[in-house]
């Protein structure tokens, strides 16, 4: 069962989170306005393909690892990506539920599931971190922000494993403290890539659809 929380922890889980969330929303709104302030390049020629279908295709390839040559070749990395992002999305969901409906996620099966998801996400994060350290080609493209973001997310997921049972106040402070930090830091860091994702997938789908390249044609003898 959830423990009784100190005033500090209660404020951290509620008011601080809301303030940080509002900050994030404002920065993201400004960021989207900033992206839209740049004029989009347009095609003047008649379309060769089905642009709408191509845009839908561009959005759905993320769930179709067999479609991209990279994810088809490195399927393990795609699984790692999926686990990591499911864990992060779940952790975000928990930060909304835990402060207001703690009992909803307090039953032992739910706690075990959350811990398993966060634990797997942590392993995926560590695996990614290991690759960035061990693989020279990854090391060459890793910026301090890349490394820091990954380390902090690994810490956050680790804190999530400990905080999920809602029985340790230090774990809850760590988890929600890191959440508040992320809400402020993420809009400026590489982690904000998900804000760009809908835009860039839209434009690449539209562009390649216009040219008749997307949706990708069935490729026999795929490597």
């Amino acid at each position, binding site marked *: 069962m959830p423990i009784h929380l100190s005033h500090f922890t209660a404020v951290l889980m509620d008011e601080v989170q809301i303030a940080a969330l509002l900050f994030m929303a404002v920065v993201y709104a400004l960021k989207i306005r900033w992206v839209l302030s740049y004029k989009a390049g347009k095609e003047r020629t008649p379309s060769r393909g089905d642009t709408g279908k191509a845009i839908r295709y561009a959005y759905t390839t993320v769930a179709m690892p067999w479609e*991209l040559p990279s994810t088809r070749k490195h399927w393990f990395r795609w699984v790692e990506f999926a686990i990591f992002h499911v864990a992060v999305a779940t952790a975000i969901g928990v930060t909304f539920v835990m402060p207001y409906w703690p009992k909803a996620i307090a039953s032992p099966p739910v706690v075990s599931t959350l811990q398993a998801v966060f634990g797997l996400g942590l392993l995926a994060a560590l695996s990614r971190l290991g690759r960035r350290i061990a693989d020279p*080609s990854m090391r060459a493209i890793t910026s301090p922000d890349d490394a820091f973001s990954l380390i902090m997310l690994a810490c956050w997921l680790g804190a999530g494993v400990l905080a999920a049972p809602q029985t340790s106040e230090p774990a809850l402070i760590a988890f929600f403290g890191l959440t508040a930090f992320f809400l402020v830091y993420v809009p400026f860091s590489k982690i904000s*890539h998900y804000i760009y994702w809908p835009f*860039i997938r839209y434009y*690449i789908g539209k562009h390649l659809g216009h040219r008749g*390249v997307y949706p990708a044609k069935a490729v026999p003898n795929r490597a």
Partner: protein
Amino acid sequence: MADHTSGSNEKAKAVVEAFPKKLNRQALLSFASCVHCGMCNDSCHYYLATGDPKMTPAYKADQVRKLFKYHVDWLGRLAPAWVGGKTFTDDAQLEELKDVVFGTCTMCRRCTISCPFGVDHALMMRMTRGMLSAQGVAPEGVKVVSNDQWQTGNQMGVSQEDYLETLAWLQDELRNEVGDPKAEIPIDKAGVNIVFVVNPREIKYAPMSLLAAAKIFYAAGEDWTMPSVGWDNTNFGLFSGDDKLGAHMGNLAYDQAIKLGVKKMVVSECGHGFRATKWEAPNWAGRDLPFPIESFLETMVEYVNTGRIMLDPSANRKPVTYHDPCNLGRSAGITEEPRFLLKRACMDYREMTPNRQENYCCTGGGGAMSMSEYSSRRLQVAKVKADQIKATGAACVATACHNCVDGLTDLIKHYKINIPVKNVCEYVADALVLRRAAHVTEEMPAELRGRSVLVIDDDPDVVTYLTTLLQDHGLKTFTARNAAEGIKVARRERPDMITLDISMPGRSGIEVFTWLRSEPEMTGIPVCIVTGAIDFRQLMYHRNVPPPDGYIEKPVKADLLLMTVRRILEIKLHKASPVGVS
């Protein structure tokens, strides 16, 4: 990149100032979105072949992205080092950036197809090339060819006279080949269905594909024309990043097509030429065109489907594979048409793996063929393509791009695969079922008999082969076994043309060629390079002197040699006594 200093910073300053102004929404997203996940790393043939961490698409893009991070990115403007931001403060840094964007990327877009985000590395590379080119920081070949396109309207500096003479000669060849004295290659015929725009390589060095196209138009009974101006479908604006040049080249072709009142424009088999003419140049020029543009591949498919041409695949019995040009497969959606044609024109078609939009670059894309300073690297990274070709077990390669033909020919020679590369239309032309029996003429016209050719080559077997072949066809020959002897004989005999080897002991053929082009009494003698080395390409692109009149790669094929010699001598003869073009 290592930091060197040049003591000057004017160009660096101009690039830094231009960068934010060049960004559009798509470019901004490509600069901002990369998470350095590394999924694109082994999509690139430069990285696959070398294993060098500095050859991954993300690393190469970061050499430009650092400018974005430093000057545009929100966090980067406050703490650039934290996000990998850095600015350029010295012109020497631009030279290093030039080597990255011109020398380690063919803008093939395979990484874009592999990227889970769709980060368009080619877009970023082209944008950077444009900023550098504007400051004069570009490979010499790119500068020369771009200048030629501005000055002459075509990338090989072919004069109007040479262009028309070549078409007249090709028309004679067509008539001989199809056995019809009325077969023609029309020029500036108004109101026709098709205006056909070509790659200058087809005029200057490789007329086989243009002859094949003319034969196919003839067989289909097409009402077509070549334009007298605006005939170059290639566009170095795509490679140099210069949108103004891109628009200029597009406008030349579009204006002539409108003037002639044609129903559509057909682009010969050139990957970047088709992409630029059909898709990019209307955007650069800001024009909506009143006629459609299609690839000659599409035209040929229509001819087959409507029964306008018939093909007999027994004409091409050897196993053939198809190399998808990047600009057709990944930027223009042309992948099925060549397969449709090859499966009908050849007995044994074999798929390359991977293929279509996932195919590897021929290594000659992005203008790489004109950048001879990067040739050794190009051949090193071509191992990926060489392995791909070997794995098919094919005895011939087909492609639909002249850059690819050259790129593949170089790597095939380098990796000793020893199989020919031809355009798709050449296979189709060979398989054409004509009402009259076609024949390839090897006859030397009477007016050329007795003309003299100086063969300069250090290989006695090659000298014997070439002189025997030429003498058997009524030509007089002189020989020289090295550069010094060649110069001596050329001075003494003043031959009608010279065939020149490149790799010879002592002074190279390149030195001899430069001398021939510089000596006033020798400049009128046409030169055909006959070589097994790829160095000759610098004569075509990095030229301080006019380019050679032809080239033939060893091992020399008899029909190609005779055709090239006929073309060069006939054009020389017609220049001496001009005749009208029908």
